[in-house]
Structure formats: structure tokens, C-alpha cells
């Protein structure tokens, strides 16, 4: 069995600060991490490998530094790692990204047939959840998004049955492999890296592919040129003009404070009072 897992290296957004005056991202010193959502995809792929044997290949598009993210995945037990990196990919939106990744996956396929492709649900920096579906369409693979559980994988008959999160319930879907799965978060718990795998990861020669190695045929479809969306403006959220009306707390008991809040709130919002009166249980 051969699984390709697509990951992205992202800035740890918990540590991102925005410059208060220029509204630019202050990236300096912000650590880069594997997109947390992708780790659920990785763990699921590793679990399938535990049950069925085979190989897990990691794929990432990004700057040369993204090699670190791939090595991290090797330390958890992935077998091979490919970094698609080329200046020509810079400025790609989700459409151009899915074109490049799909093209690289076709090259990987030439080395060894692929049964499944995994991605995370979305990234924490772009949040679009569009790259997975894009890759699936380009490779004419069956698309399975928001997968919460793999119920059955039948390699001999090339079928897979999964549970997919939908609004108000779960869909049970059965389809053919190869298919592309975007894994839902919190569906599994990432294993610990073992010492031998950590050593292997540190020394692992991540394969670096430029646009030719990745089999890019149409240069107008990658990078900025291949991106239909244009970022026209970046700005900070507008602060609300007035700050909260503070309910006086000096020398007031909690009871006074509560009563004063209710007074102030319902005087200014009589409709809210009426509404809440009807809603509150007797």
C-alpha cells in the first residue's frame, strides 16, 4: 500500500503579532510548524500502514526551510519525503497550489502506484480547505472531505468505506481507491516519535523537486500567474468607537452590580427584556 500525505509548513499563529501601526505581520522569531490539522492526516496514514504495511510518502510545497516540517513527519514514522520548492511557485493561491501538488503526485505515482492521498482539513494560516478538493479534481480521484473515521479499507477490491462529518450527522460513504481524504481534526492522537525515527529524521535526505522534477507542464498555471485571486487590500480590524459602559463596582456588592447591569441593559434594550422574559423558564 502506498499513501501520499500532503502537508504545509505554517507560522505558529499563536505567536504571530501584527505591527500596531503598519498592520504588517511580524514574522521575525515566529516558529514555523507543521500545520496542526495535517498531523491528523499523518497519524491516520500511519495507522493504515500499521495495519496493512506499505509506505507513507510526505509531500510539501514551500520554501527550502519547509524541509524541517517534512523531517518532523519522518520522525513520526513516515517513509519518504518530497519538498516541491521553486521560486516559480511563489504567490500561488489555492488553485495554483493544487495544480502544482497534483502534478507532483503524478510524478510520485510513476515511482509507485498510489492507493490514497491525505490532506488536513484546512491550514491555520489560509483556512480555505480548498487545496484538498482541488487536488482530487485534478487527479480525477474520488474526494472524501471531513473524514472522521475510516471504517474499512479493502485493498484487494480497491474500495474504502468512511464516515464523513456533515451538517447534523455523519455520512457513511463507500468509494473506490485511489481517493483523496481530508481528515477531520481530533479524530486520532498523534503517536510519539521513537528515538530511532528521530535519528533517521535528522539524517533523512528530503528529496527536493523543482518545477521540472515536479512535472509542471503549464507555467501559466503555477505561482502568482496561475492564481485567479488577487489580494487587493490588507488591513487591521476597526476598533469599536465606544468602549464598554462600565457598571460601577466600587463599594458595590455583587448583588448591586448584577441588579445595576440588568437595569442598564434593559433600559437601553427594552425589546431584549421582552424577548428574554418569554424565553426564560418559569
Amino acid at each position: 500500500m502506498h499513501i501520499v500525505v500532503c502537508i504545509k509548513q505554517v507560522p505558529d499563529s499563536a505567536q504571530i503579532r501584527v505591527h500596531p501601526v503598519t498592520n504588517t505581520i511580524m514574522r521575525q522569531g515566529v516558529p514555523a510548524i507543521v500545520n496542526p490539522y495535517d498531523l491528523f492526516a499523518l497519524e491516520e496514514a500511519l495507522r493504515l500502514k500499521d495495519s496493512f504495511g506499505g509506505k507513507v510518502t510526505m509531500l510539501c510545497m514551500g520554501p527550502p526551510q519547509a524541509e524541517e516540517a517534512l523531517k518532523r513527519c519522518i520522525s513520526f514514522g513516515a517513509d519518504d519525503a518530497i519538498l516541491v520548492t521553486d521560486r516559480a511557485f511563489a504567490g500561488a493561491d489555492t488553485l495554483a497550489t493544487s495544480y502544482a501538488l497534483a502534478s507532483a503526485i503524478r510524478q510520485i505515482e510513476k515511482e509507485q502506484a498510489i492507493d490514497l492521498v491525505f490532506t488536513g482539513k484546512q491550514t491555520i494560516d489560509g483556512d480555505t480547505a480548498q487545496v484538498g478538493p482541488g487536488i482530487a479534481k485534478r487527479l480525477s480521484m474520488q474526494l472524501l472531505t471531513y473524514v472522521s473515521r475510516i471504517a474499512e479499507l479493502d485493498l484487494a477490491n480497491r474500495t474504502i468505506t468512511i464516515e464523513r462529518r456533515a451538517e447534523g450527522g455523519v455520512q457513511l460513504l463507500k468509494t473506490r481507491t485511489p481517493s483523496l481524504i481530508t481528515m477531520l481534526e481530533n479524530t486520532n492522537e498523534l503517536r510519539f516519535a521513537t528515538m530511532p525515527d528521530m535519528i533517521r529524521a535528522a539524517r533523512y535526505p528530503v528529496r527536493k523537486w523543482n518545477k521540472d522534477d515536479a512535472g509542471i507542464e503549464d507555467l501559466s498555471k503555477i505561482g502568482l500567474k496561475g492564481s485567479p485571486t488577487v489580494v487587493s487590500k490588507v488591513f487591521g480590524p476597526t476598533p469599536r468607537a465606544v468602549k464598554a459602559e462600565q457598571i460601577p463596582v466600587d463599594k458595590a456588592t455583587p448583588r448591586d452590580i448584577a441588579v445595576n447591569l440588568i437595569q442598564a441593559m434593559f433600559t437601553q434594550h427594552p425589546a431584549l427584556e421582552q424577548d428574554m422574559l418569554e424565553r426564560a423558564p418559569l
Partner: protein
Amino acid sequence: MSDAPAPRKPAGRGGRNLELPEHLKAYKGVWVFIEHDRGSVHQVSWELLGEGRMLADTLGVALSGVLLGGPDDNLTAFANEAFTHGAEACYTVRDAVLDGYRNEPFTRGLTDLVNKYRPEIVLLGATTMGRDLAGSVATTLQTGLTADCTELKIDPTSRALAATRPTFGGSLLCTIMTLAYRPQMATVRPRVMAMPKADTKRSGAIIEDTLGMVETDIVTKLLDFIPDANTSKVNLAYADVIVSGGKGLKNPENFKLIWDLAKTLGGDVGATRPVVQSGWVAAERQVGQTGKTVRPKLYIAAGISGAIQHRVGMEAADVIVAINNDPNAPIFDFAHFGIVGNAMTILPALTEAFRNHFAIRRMKAA
């Protein structure tokens, strides 16, 4: 549109064409994909029609809904409801293979309709269905898609859709446009846009179309749908009153004070991400960037600092009350009423005071 338009002047950065090619100028009108499942339409579709109406009026074009469904789906009733929410027409495709959502036939259905009728804007809800479908359709049509928009406008110079969305975890906003491709696609999360007022006098035209796919063409089979257990059916996004707690409550024991107040108000319970991560409440109660967007009439936030990732999920609430012992907590910058104090003493006092207030009001009314 698989052949990318040849570069023309004026070229943007990176030799990119930023002008709408002649053959795409025929794309006209605003579409909203109307999402329905097991007999009811997702409210986000009506919210999108409200927003779509404004876009269509600005452009001076028609607003239409798109309904794909199976033989037993009441598409006509859904279309009529769409008219009351602002649509002038509805494109409907009814086929047995469209019974229950599956990516392949729905992608085909929506793609074919777009290619045939050529709308300039297509809006979908950012739900598990809408996002699955939007990504697939945009790739098939080779066009731009902007996810999770919080504001949609028409750029006066280019007449393009200016879609604004939070980026970098909500710390910044960016406006994204699709200038040289059509249609322009965008998704919007439930509750981000206001629900339009229904006007039952409005009507519209239903345009029926066919799919041209048979079940044997479709690889993926929907074996079953397992509805969520009723107990876990939290519909926070549509709650009118929410009492939310943050890490300032210190422990799950204190968090019970949130539940007490919510119960007294007949409201729902929300939480910040760290609270969910600590396992004090279920994940579906998380409000914010990576949780739910809510739009209640009243949002009471106790022990919540007001980080931007939380704020983006709740700032559209009509009235926000914040309880925090730090007078400089960011939550006071956007709450309407503030109490600087200890949540552990204020919350029970509020529960008591609300209960008394309602009792007195009811006595007076009787």
C-alpha cells in the same frame, strides 16, 4: 475556461493579467447555492440571499438560487421560500442521483449550470457541504474562490466582487478579488451575515434543468446517514442567548456557574478554545475563528480575555456583556457592558438577579 486567457495589458505583478477578458464579460447575475438536507434548507442559504440581493442591486443584475435535489425533495417549496428571501429566479435540477449530498454529481450539476447560464458571482455557505462543493467546482471551472468571507462588496472601479476575510488567525483582514476569471466564487460561514426579512408577497421563476448522469456513472455510494444524537445537537450558531466562559473560571467546577446562568436565561453555553482544549465542555461549544460564529441577541462573556480569534466569532452579537477582573482586558474594547470583577461571585449574583427580575416582571404582568 481551461485555456488561461493570454496576457493582455495592463499586466499585474508577475506578468499576471488583471483585466477581464472580453469573452467573460457575458457572465451576468448573482447566484446563491441553496443547501438543503433531509427536508430543510440550511439558514445560511437565506443569509446569503440577503447579501446576494445587495450585490445584485449594486450591479443591476438578477439574483438567483440554485437547488439540486432528489425526486422526493420539495424543491418547489424551497424555491418559493428563496423568492421570499430575495431571489428572482431559481435554477432547479432534480435527479435520483442528487438524493443526498455527494461530491461528484453535485459538482457536475453546479458546474454545468454555471457553464450554461454564466453567472458572474456564485456564493455558497461555508459548511461541510458548501466547502466540499465550492472547492471542487472552482477547480473544475478554473476560477477564483475566497473562503469564509465576512464582508462582500462590489468594487466600484472594476465591478468585481471584493470579498473580505480574516487572515492570520483573525489578526488581519484582507480583501480578495477575482479580476480576470469568472465566475467569482465565495463561501460565507453561517451567522456571519444577517438573516434577511422574508417578504411573502415576492415570487419568481423556476427554471428546470436536467443532469444527464446515471447512478452507474457515480463511483461514491452513500450507504447511510447517521443523525447526531439529540443530546449532542448543539445549535450554538443560532442561539439567541449565550453565556460563555473562558479560562478565567479556573476549573470545571466553577464553569458550572456558566451553566446555571444559561439555564436561568433559557440560553446556551459557549466557551473559548482553551476551555474546550481542557475538556471542560464539548468542542461544538467553541466560539471563534476555529469554532462557531454566533450572532445572539445577548452574549455574556465571563473570564474571557477577548482575543481576536474569539472576538471574530461573537462580535456580531446585539448586546455583549463582559465580566473580567482585569480592567485592561481587550474584551472591554468591544463589549457593550462591562463589569470589572470576579466572575465567581458576579455569575451567581447575576443568576439570582435575573431570576428575581423575571419573577417580578411576571407578577406585575399577571
